[in-house]
Structure formats: structure tokens, C-alpha cells
């Protein structure tokens, strides 16, 4: 199947009467994303809610979108980008799938970190919100598997964060997307057990990844410069990476980075501790 060019005007035309004001946000392995407004069904007027609209056409993308839709269909959480609707349109004679999410007004954490290290109170707020989201999806026995700065949105004002993109999230009962042994996730953020790729993961893997994200936020750079092997083969000492950071936050991150799953705190414990730190730091 040839890849379709998803120009804003073509998408607007294809979704005429439902979405308007397409602004491209990005394009890559996860499809093409537009920011737009959803139109009210009755009078086709612009609704209040802004939407992030993802469009996919490739087979691998379709599998991911269906997985994400399944995952998000079960969960509603303030720290997860909510699913509004999904469907298909025909463009250029080909079927294109789309998903509309609640638009998060803010900046992805990877871009924010490029600007400067993040204040401990803000990192704590990120920990509080993302851990809460991880805990909630784990109640449905779903593991996100790709908690990384690009998938954490820091809302404008930097007081709260939202976890996005459950495209490779996996319910425990689900089969792998591809052949056995394939490792899913973003290098530099994966837990040792995720890299091993053979056993059932739990929320502890997402907590490990969140620990890396928080440490990177505090330091303003990845603790092993993005090297996955270094991350799991050399014991990262958080206090060495961010010597001037508050001790309570550093100790929490250190536990989140424990190579053994049971020594990592539960999502609820991370959220609770981070909530206190976000208020007091």
C-alpha cells in the first residue's frame, strides 16, 4: 500500500462537517497528527473542545491504533489524553483511520527538557500525574511500555502532566504485536525486564521508565545519554546525576530505578510521595 499524503486541506475535506481548522503537529512512525476543532453534530458550529487528530494508513499503524483505542476505551483518567472518537475516512481511494483525542495544551517533555532542566517541584508534579495514570491503566492490567519524555505532555503553566500514546500499550492477555522476542519501547527508557522481552511485564516496568524520565527532567539530559545498555548494565546513581536535587526526590527516583521489580515503589506510592514533594519543594 502506498502511503497517502495527508495534507491539511485534504484531511479537512475528507472530514468535512466534523473537524475544522487543521494545523499539522507532526508526522512520523505513529501517523500524522493535526490540531483542530471538533464541530458540533447538530449545527456544525465550532465546539469548545480542541482535538488532536491522528490519522493512520499503514498496516503497522492500524494495529497500533486499534490497540490504543481498545486500551483507552476502558479508561478515563485526568492524566491520560482522553479518547473522543475513532473511525475511518476514504482519501485518494484508500481507507484511512483516524482517532480524535482530547487536545493537551502544553509541550511534550522532551522539548521542554531541551530548553533547560526542570524544577524539582515540576518534576514531582510530573511524577505524581504520570504515576497516577500508570496506576490506573494497570488496574485494567495494561502496561504502557513507552513512558518517555516524548509521551508526557506538560500542560501550559507546568502544574500538571498527561501521559499520551498508548499505541504499544499491552493488556496482559494480549498477544504480542509481532513475533516473540520483539522488544517494544523507546531505547534509553526501558526496564531490564522489558529489554529481556520474554516475560509478562507489570506496572513496575512503567515505573522504571518514569524514574528515568524524572531524572532526565531534573538533570536536563538523559542519565546515560540515551544509551539503553549503559542504563541497565551500570547502576545509575541518581544522587551523582543530580547532586543538588532534593534528597527525598532523589531517593524516590533511585528506588524507581531498582533493577529488581519488587524494590520499585507501586504507582500509588510514587503518586502519593510526589504529590507531597510537589507541594513542599
Amino acid at each position, binding site marked *: 500500500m502506498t502511503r497517502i499524503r495527508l495534507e491539511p486541506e485534504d484531511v479537512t475535506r475528507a472530514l468535512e462537517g466534523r473537524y475544522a481548522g487543521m494545523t499539522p503537529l507532526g508526522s512520523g512512525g505513529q501517523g500524522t497528527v493535526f490540531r483542530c476543532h471538533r464541530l458540533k453534530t447538530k449545527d456544525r458550529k465550532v465546539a469548545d473542545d480542541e482535538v488532536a487528530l491522528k490519522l493512520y494508513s499503514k498496516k503497522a499503524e492500524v494495529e497500533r491504533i486499534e490497540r490504543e483505542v481498545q486500551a483507552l476505551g476502558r479508561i478515563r483518567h485526568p492524566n491520560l489524553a482522553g479518547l473522543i472518537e475513532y473511525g475511518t475516512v476514504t482519501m485518494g481511494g484508500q481507507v484511512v483511520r483516524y482517532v480524535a483525542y482530547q487536545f493537551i495544551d502544553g509541550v511534550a517533555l522532551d522539548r521542554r527538557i531541551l530548553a533547560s532542566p526542570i524544577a524539582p517541584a515540576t518534576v514531582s508534579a510530573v511524577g505524581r500525574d504520570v504515576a497516577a495514570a500508570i496506576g490506573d491503566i*494497570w488496574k485494567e*492490567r495494561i502496561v504502557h511500555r513507552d513512558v518517555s519524555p516524548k509521551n508526557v505532555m506538560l500542560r501550559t503553566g507546568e502544574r500538571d502532566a498527561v501521559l499520551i500514546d498508548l499505541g504499544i500499550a499491552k493488556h*496482559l*492477555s494480549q498477544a504480542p504485536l509481532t513475533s516473540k522476542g520483539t522488544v517494544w519501547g523507546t531505547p534509553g527508557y526501558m526496564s*531490564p*525486564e522489558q529489554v*529481556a522481552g*520474554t*516475560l*509478562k511485564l*507489570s*506496572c*513496575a516496568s512503567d515505573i522504571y521508565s518514569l524514574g528515568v524520565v524524572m531524572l532526565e527532567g531534573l538533570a536536563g539530559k538523559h542519565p546515560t545519554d540515551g544509551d539503553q545498555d549503559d542504563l541497565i548494565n551500570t547502576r545509575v546513581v541518581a544522587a551523582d546525576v543530580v547532586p543538588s536535587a532534593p534528597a527525598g526526590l532523589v531517593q524516590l527516583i533511585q528506588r524507581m530505578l*531498582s533493577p*529488581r*521489580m*519488587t*524494590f520499585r515503589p*507501586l504507582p*500509588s506510592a510514587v503518586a502519593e510521595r510526589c504529590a507531597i514533594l510537589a507541594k513542599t519543594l
Partner: protein
Amino acid sequence: MFYYNLRYHFKTKPGSPESGCGSIVLASAVAAEEMSRRQFKNYPHLQHRIFDPQLYLAGLDPRTAEGTVRKLSSYKWFGGQSVPEYDSSKHGSMKTYRATYGEQLLEGWSRSLPKDLSSIGQAARAAVEFQLNLGCEAILLPSPMTDTHRSGYQEEVQWLDAGLEASRELRVSLPVYATVALTSNVLRGTSPLREGLLNAVSGHVASRERLAGAYIVIEQGDEQKVDCTSGDTLASLLLLIDDLVRGAGRQVIVNYMGTFGAIATAAGASIWATGYYPSQRRLRFADFDDKEAFAYPRYFSVRLLGDVGIRDDLLTLCKRNLSSRILTDTTSARSLHAALRRGEAPDSLPLWEYKQGNHSLAMPHYYECMYTFGRHLHSMERTERVEFVDKWLASAAALAAELRAVKPKLSGRTELSHQETWLTEFRKWRGYAES
């Protein structure tokens, strides 16, 4: 805390400890229709009781273990829902009921477990309900035996979540434990610290907030001795306990590890269960095979952390002035010790005579040893307990080495092959835990 690992008979012999301990009751020991009618209130040691549904025995072969399979198959989680529940007004005696439905249950024993989530859910719920009705102090969620790395712990996780869902639906307020059942085969040949399976097992228990902890049993199919001699198995057990207790703040119950269960309390296990007979001290599928043999009595030495042969070795060692290092004073052993000091053989005392089925005093002696040793360990703070166990193991290993050098050689009934391994693995674990 020490718990009896009970078989068919719940009544203990006179001299056995009754209070300050508890009991684990096994599905393989008593059929469902009888278990649900047993009177627990008559036995002090059953006031703290836990029931093990033993789903991990689903692979037993009815051609060799027919007696056990008949009992297990009567429970709903093994397929017992295919026959009506026993009702004396309808079915008459239990004997008649078994005659009517026993063959049907036996024929339905497939040596495999359901794979679909609906059937798993029903079976898990039946196991939880049964334990609630039995008045247990905690619920053990059923789990299959983990005998391969290949499945990636998928099946076990399905059973675990089905059990948790059943506990939620039934509004269980008791502590709920995940059963962790592993074969020693999956633990052999790799460093436990690098063993991804162990990390996943403890990780899945730790990531479920509702769980109070884990109930751990390890099948030792290739163990020839009564006491575990596999370093990998022992190291894995200590690491699992450490992960769950020190790492995740959970409780651990250990069964079928003999006296090593007491050693495991130093790593954090809160309850350990064992029993007098070898089949209660270790878990081996072969021990469930139908047999007619009656066991000989065994004399347990706490200082040696193992049995000493009654027939020949006890008197030999006492004559060599080793009595103070071998004998363990209990109410049941006083007459035996007095006879040995007089230079008389145990056979001179009918209740200690070395003959099949004669356990009148050997059994309560063993249980008093376990109870007293366990209570002593329980009374200590964790660091003190670790230090104490280390010294105790070192002393037992030294004693075993000394006894191995005795000429002429002691009989094979004196157990001298496990102490050094226990000490080595305990110290390895200690080094890891304290680093």
C-alpha cells in the same frame, strides 16, 4: 511462626505442640465432601488454618497417583463441578457417593487446566469460596505449577488475576496470598539474581496492591534427600522472599521446605510449614504415588538440622561423647535420652523401637523441635535472627563434617549432605541483602 503441614489425620500425637502454631490443610489429603465436614474446632492447632487448593498438582498421573487424584478431582477447581455436590440426604454415605461419582471424576482428570478466561474465573472463584466456607485465616489463590520459562508466566498471571477478581466479587476481607509454585528445574543452572523469571514472579505479586503476599512451594522432582540439597533452589527461595518482604513489604508463607523453612524466616518469611514425614517436608510429584509402605521412625536433631539414624547411629554417637551436640531435649525424647545415657539402644524402648509405623514419640519430638526452634527465631529482631541463623548453620555444617569423618561410617539415615549447601547459600543471600 511454625505451621503443621497436615496430611489426612488432623489429630496430632500426644506431646505435639498445640497452641502458638497453626496448620496448612491440603486438598490432596482429604476429598472435598469430607473436608467441608471436618470439625476444626476440636483441634487447637487448627484454629489458625490455611487451606492450600493445590492447583499446581493438576499434572499428577492417575495411573500412578490414583488415590491422590481421586481426592483432588473432587474439588470444583479441578473439575469437580461436573458431579452434584455431596448431600447425605440424597447420596447416603460418602462411600456410596464416591462409588457413584468417583469413576466419573477420575475419568475427567485431564492432567491439564482450562485455558479460557471464563473457566479459569469459575475455578478460581470456587477455590476462594471453599476457603471462605472453611473458615481459613487467609486465602491462597490457586496457581498452576511453573515448570517452564517458555510461557513467560502468562498462565499464572491469568489465574492470579482471576483469583483477585473472585476475591473482590466475594468481598473477601481476609489477607489474600498469591500461590507461587515452581519446579526446581526452572531454577537450576542460572544465577537467581540474573533470573528473569524470579524477578517477574515477585514483580507480579508486588504490583498487585490487594495481595498480602505469596505462598511459596517448590517441587523438587530430582531431590533424592529429605532436605533440599540444590543450591539454586535454596538461593532462589531466599531471593524470592527477600524481594517480596524487603523489596515490596509483603508477607511470605513457605511450605514443603522442611527445616529450611525456619531458615527462611531469617530472609523474612513469616509462616513456614513442614511435617514429620518426608512427603510433608518436601514437595515431589513422585511422593503422591500410591504406596503401601509404612515409614520407619526418624529422630530429629536441631543442632544438626537433620535426622540422625535411630537404629545404629544415635547410640554410636552418644558412646563417642557427642550426645550434647546431637540430642535435642523434648518432652517426647526424655526417655530415649535417658536410655542412651545408660548405654541402651533405642530398641529397648517400645515407643522408640525402630520398626515400621512406630512414630508415637518420634513424631511429637519432631514437632516440638520445629515449634521451639521456630518460636526462638520468631522472638528475635530481624538482624539478630540473621546473625543467629548464620551461626547456627555454621555450627550444623561443622558438626555434619565431623560426623562424616566418623569411622566406621554412619548409616545413610543420618543426614549429612545438606548443611554445607544451606550455609553457603544463606551466606550468599546475606551478602547480597546487606550490600
